[in-house]
């Protein structure tokens, strides 16, 4: 009896328009998500194609900057012994007071275990020589201008109340942060601070860019748990972050669509009850229980939502792809190829069904309550 009523409910006039209403809303979601997928995929492909270099730094896991990182100074030997590593230097970044003839300055000292390798790696231009002795230092070009330091000047540095007099042997330009720093051998700073067990970080680069991922995996395996490896030049991560922002934006927008789906289901269920009063009363008279009537109305709404969503997904994807083909023909933009992931389609389907359930519960329950009151006991 119920299945017969069910068939009759689907023959009601409003069924087609209800399916179309939901299908149009879902088509919107499907098309926007398809376009977004295309844009995100293109961004990811383009970022992967860019040359991203093969320089990495090792810092302590809990650090958010270089100066608050402390890692085992002996770790550099493990890195240098790795056959995949092309260049590696351990570096200590420390804040200090610089005293020159023009005044006192708060600066950052970059102490490197191999200043020559460090400057060569950065293709530095040097006016003078590379500091090698404990009494020597190089000065970055911006710092030299700021503090009026010239080659062969004598400067004083103060770190943790410990002072050292150093001779400036070269002015360096790397077009990097070392242009604003004092660059000196690591041993010089370690002598001053009497601390040589840890360094701030290790910078290294790999020999073969083609095997980057494999090499980094090997290196990470030999490292202790309290350090992390960070890639320099994060194109892929940047693209992912931007993609996530766009996805979040579309998700927020989708909330409005699902709100309308809830409204559509409410209208659909109310209309059904309105149009099928006779059938529903007949069922009640024949002994159908209240719960069964509620589930009949809700199931009807869910089936309509299911059909509407399937049609909407198909229309959305096909429509966007047809439009994309048109755009390709007209403008020759071959990169426009919208697509929807199966898991996204499933997500849309489930959310649409949930929205439909939410929208149809109230009219279903209310109708059966009214019917129960009107029905003689």
């Amino acid at each position: 009896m119920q299945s017969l009523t069910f068939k009759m409910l689907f023959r009601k006039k409003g069924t087609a328009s209800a399916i179309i209403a939901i299908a149009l809303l879902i088509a919107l979601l499907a098309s926007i998500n398809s376009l977004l997928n295309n844009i995100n995929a293109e961004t990811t492909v383009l970022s992967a194609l860019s040359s991203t270099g093969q320089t990495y730094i090792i810092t302590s896991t809990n650090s958010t900057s270089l100066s608050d990182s402390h890692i085992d100074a002996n770790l550099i030997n493990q890195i240098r012994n790795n056959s995949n590593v092309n260049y590696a230097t351990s570096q200590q970044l420390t804040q200090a007071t610089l005293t020159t003839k023009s005044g006192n300055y708060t600066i950052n000292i970059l102490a490197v275990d191999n200043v020559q390798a460090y400057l060569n790696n950065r293709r530095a231009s040097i006016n003078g020589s590379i500091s090698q002795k404990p009494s020597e230092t190089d000065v970055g070009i911006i710092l030299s201008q700021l503090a009026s330091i010239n080659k062969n000047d004598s400067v004083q540095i103060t770190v943790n109340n410990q002072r050292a007099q150093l001779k400036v042997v070269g002015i360096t330009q790397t077009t990097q942060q070392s242009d604003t720093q004092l660059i000196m051998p690591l041993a010089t700073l370690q002598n001053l601070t009497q601390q040589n067990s840890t360094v701030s970080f290790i910078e290294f680069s790999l020999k073969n860019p083609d095997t980057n991922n494999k090499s980094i995996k090997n290196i990470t395996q030999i490292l202790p748990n309290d350090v992390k490896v960070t890639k320099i030049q994060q194109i892929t991560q940047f693209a992912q972050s931007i993609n996530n922002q766009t996805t979040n934006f579309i998700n927020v927008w989708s909330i409005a669509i699902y709100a309308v789906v809830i409204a559509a289901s409410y209208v659909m269920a109310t209309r059904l009850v309105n149009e099928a009063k006779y059938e529903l009363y007949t069922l009640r008279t024949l002994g159908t229980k209240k719960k069964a009537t509620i589930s009949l109305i809700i199931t009807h709404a869910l089936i309509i939502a299911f059909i509407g969503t399937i049609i909407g997904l198909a229309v959305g994807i096909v429509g966007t792809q047809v439009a994309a083909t048109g755009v390709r023909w007209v403008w020759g933009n071959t990169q426009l190829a919208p697509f929807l992931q199966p898991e996204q389609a499933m997500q849309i389907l489930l959310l649409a069904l949930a929205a439909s359930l939410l929208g149809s519960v109230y009219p279903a329950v209310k109708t059966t309550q009214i019917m129960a009151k009107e029905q003689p006991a």
Partner: protein
Amino acid sequence: MSLIKFKYLRKQRIAILILILTLTSMLFSITAYSFLGFYNGFTSYVGEGKGVIAIYSKAGSTPFTGIVPITAVNKIASVKGVIATSPEVIAPSMINGQSVFVRGVLPQELAQLNQITITQGSSLNLNNTDSAIIGQGAAQRLNLKTGDNILVISVLSQKYVQLQIKGIFQTSSSLNDEVLVPLYVGQWLRGLTYNEVTLIRVKIDPAQTNANQLYQVIANHTQTAKPSPSPTPTSEAQKELQALIPLTSSGINIQNIGVEESQQFMSSYLDRYGISQDTLIILSIIVLVFASGTATCAMALFIRQHSSDIDILRSIGASTKKIKIDLSLKMLVWALIATTIGTVISALLLIIFQKIGYLQVLSHTITFQLDPLIIVANIILLSLLIMINVARAELKQ
């Protein structure tokens, strides 16, 4: 017999219809305001109004990737009507695993183009070699405060810098979502030499000069200028820069240089992808058309629910035309109410999602601004929908 004052429609059903019209209106408003917010934010990225000119590289595929010789600054700085010249380097970067745009600037020059209010800490000077100031939006998103040390990792070059947050600022422009650093720090992160910048923003007095004139000045200098060891700085900030970094005079390929009003410059990038204000409004209207199915069903249901009341009216002599006119007029008032409520709800939702950081595109917050055009479009579209549906309605038994 006028039906206007005749209350034959049930209040609860009216409320439900208004609710559904409100949801339809809300969907349109959210779509239109967020899309236009993105468009307006993007086009005003380098400045709003006719007073700000952008000197940029035509070769750059995005506004962030062009390269312009810094020497162009000195060529136009002395032109009558030029109030300030701000060479800037925009460097897409990563901080704490999140994308952010770092902008290298001459702080003094920038202050003449954008009003920046320091809310915490202190302002930035060109001499603050290891410091940055951060916009409130970016500080909130990246969970940073004054005094924090940050590791900034470049996206377009193999470089990284450690900086200390010197201050947090507030501005009404898109800079609110960015990190400001001295020009040379931006150049490191972008992988440029000290002679190159991403773009030069120029504040002008539109009564005295314009983009074409500035272009001509640069073109003339390109033809006549003889190579010199370094350009002659004109402003105090540029003199300060010259004192810090080794600038050399470099040639300008005038064919690669574009000089346009800032908003025109940014909208030209979006135009390449077919995105304009008009296309976004059309897209929003399409969204409303797609959502109109629900409103149509709701109106049909509403009329059907009142069929017995309508039949009574007809039986006492009210014509179909009269009833339809009455329904249309009443529904138009409800459409007005729905548009108002829909606009308010969508504004609240957008502001809430903006505050919790969900409305970000290209690491910049989508700005929300009420637009009378959208409100009018919303009312007109809903009214059209109502009139079509009432006209199509079958009121006969």
